[in-house]
């Protein structure tokens, strides 16, 4: 089976800043893979290249077997994406949001209603289906966004900081739904996070990103073990990058990232 995601020397520069530096990585089909690193490490830039929102400066990548440079439309048909920001339209109801997606992906008209009802049920949103999304709690919005991104049963799902700004209960609910999804659909999931507990909880394998580079790769247990006996994934990150997850990275784009994270957190309430 070919890898669900394969990147070769994938690089993206913004002026003087190299946001992603020669990233080479294979994610196998059915895997839940986590890209870990602090804000500004290059995780979001990596995702944006893989989902065809941002052209790479150099290097190549395929997603679900399609070349991100030459077949962006085929890539888009094969993936789902939940951005770090809010992606469901607050001025529409949950059902309307899902219907918009169903139509843009040209799902067979006969299946749309059933597929939407199924998605709402799976994400435990049936009773709120016809409410405007702006009245939803942060956790509900996230679940709706995941439902929306999964409606066309993509081969690969990209989740950018899926639980940033959520309270512990809502986080746990989102985790349960992500796990359930993988079990039910076998979807390959690439998620980014700067929460080590999230990575340990969800991911079969993780990669540490630091200043645009992939500095370590393995299962959470392997990486923790390499940092020393009885060490945590957090310790492992410090071991490989020389800096902690929370305070590292004085590089470019910091203020914007912080502002964005806070804004998202506030909106997710």
């Amino acid at each position: 089976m070919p890898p669900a995601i394969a990147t070769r020397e994938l690089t993206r520069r913004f002026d003087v800043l190299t946001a992603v530096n020669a990233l080479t990585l294979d994610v196998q089909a059915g895997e839940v893979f986590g890209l870990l690193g602090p804000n500004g490490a290059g995780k979001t830039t990596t995702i944006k290249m893989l989902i065809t929102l941002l052209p790479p400066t150099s290097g190549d990548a395929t997603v679900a077997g399609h070349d991100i440079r030459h077949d962006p439309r085929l890539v888009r048909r094969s993936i789902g994406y939940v951005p770090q920001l809010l992606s469901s339209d607050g001025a529409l109801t949950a059902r309307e949001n899902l219907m918009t997606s169903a139509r843009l992906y040209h799902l067979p008209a006969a299946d749309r209603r059933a597929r939407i009802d199924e998605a709402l049920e799976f994400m435990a949103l049936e009773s709120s289906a016809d409410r405007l999304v702006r009245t939803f709690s942060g956790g509900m919005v996230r679940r709706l966004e995941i439902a929306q991104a999964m409606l066309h049963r993509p081969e690969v799902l990209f989740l950018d900081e899926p639980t940033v700004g959520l309270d512990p209960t809502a986080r746990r609910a989102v985790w349960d739904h992500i796990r359930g999804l993988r079990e039910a659909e076998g979807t390959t999931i690439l998620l980014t996070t700067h929460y080590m507990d999230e990575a340990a909880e969800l991911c079969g394998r993780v990669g540490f990103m630091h200043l645009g580079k992939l500095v370590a790769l393995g299962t959470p247990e392997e990486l923790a073990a390499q940092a020393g006996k009885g060490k945590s994934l957090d310790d492992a990150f410090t071991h490989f990058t020389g800096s902690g997850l929370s305070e590292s990275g004085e590089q470019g784009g910091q203020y914007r990232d912080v502002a964005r994270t806070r804004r998202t957190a506030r909106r997710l309430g």
Partner: protein
Amino acid sequence: MTSLERAERPAVWAEPPAAIRFVQDSWTIAEGELRKLRHDPTELITRAVQPLLWLLVFGQVIANTRAIPTGSLSYIDFLAPGILAQSALFSAIFFGIAIIWERDLGVLHKYLVSPASRGALVTGKALAGGLRSLVQAAMVYALALVIGVHLRLDPLSVIGVALVVVIGSAAFATFSLVIACLVRTRERFMGIGQILTMPLFFASSAIYPISIMPDWLQVVAHLNPLTYQVDALRGLMVQGATESFPLALDFAVLSVTTVVLIAIAARLYPRLAQ
């Protein structure tokens, strides 16, 4: 990895041909926008108040001074189509704010990651921007009737007016979208929006005939799509009004402007998500 075998994944499901997809996707986007207005029509209603003030206050005062030569037309008759065009312009020119909002939220990213073409996404937005100005047109018509503007009410004229309003507003909404793609932040957009509206408005035949403008401004007015929109509206809306240009030319200018702007916006649209 037993789940892999279990998953039945319709890797390739049938899709309509590209041209049909384009139309369907545009309509999906436009319809979503219209639904939003139905859920919350506040903006629509507040926007409709402005033309009423222009017609009632500005129109009545200037009509009394008889300062503007409008030929055989009364000033109010002359002004009504201009105010319709103006109100449609004023609301269309700030359309880009909503796009920047969508970008800040992340809604835009989701649409750009869908298989819909950029052209269809932009066309849908343009169409929504055009269609929502019909509400303003209805308000202007209602008030115009009350204050005694000599409206042409035969179905063909009314349909013609609706078409001109939709195409013209679609053009300016797309123009606004292009600016949004270039400036990308709300603050910069607001400033530029204000700067652009005034010249577009005053260098057109909306509130006075082109003939009373200084020569250089007449040249600008002839390059201004709003002039052609007002011209077509005047001919179609008011009894006894004469157009400065053939109606076909008005339609051609507005349509070509819209198509060109959509093409430009479609190219720039992905920049918003980068």
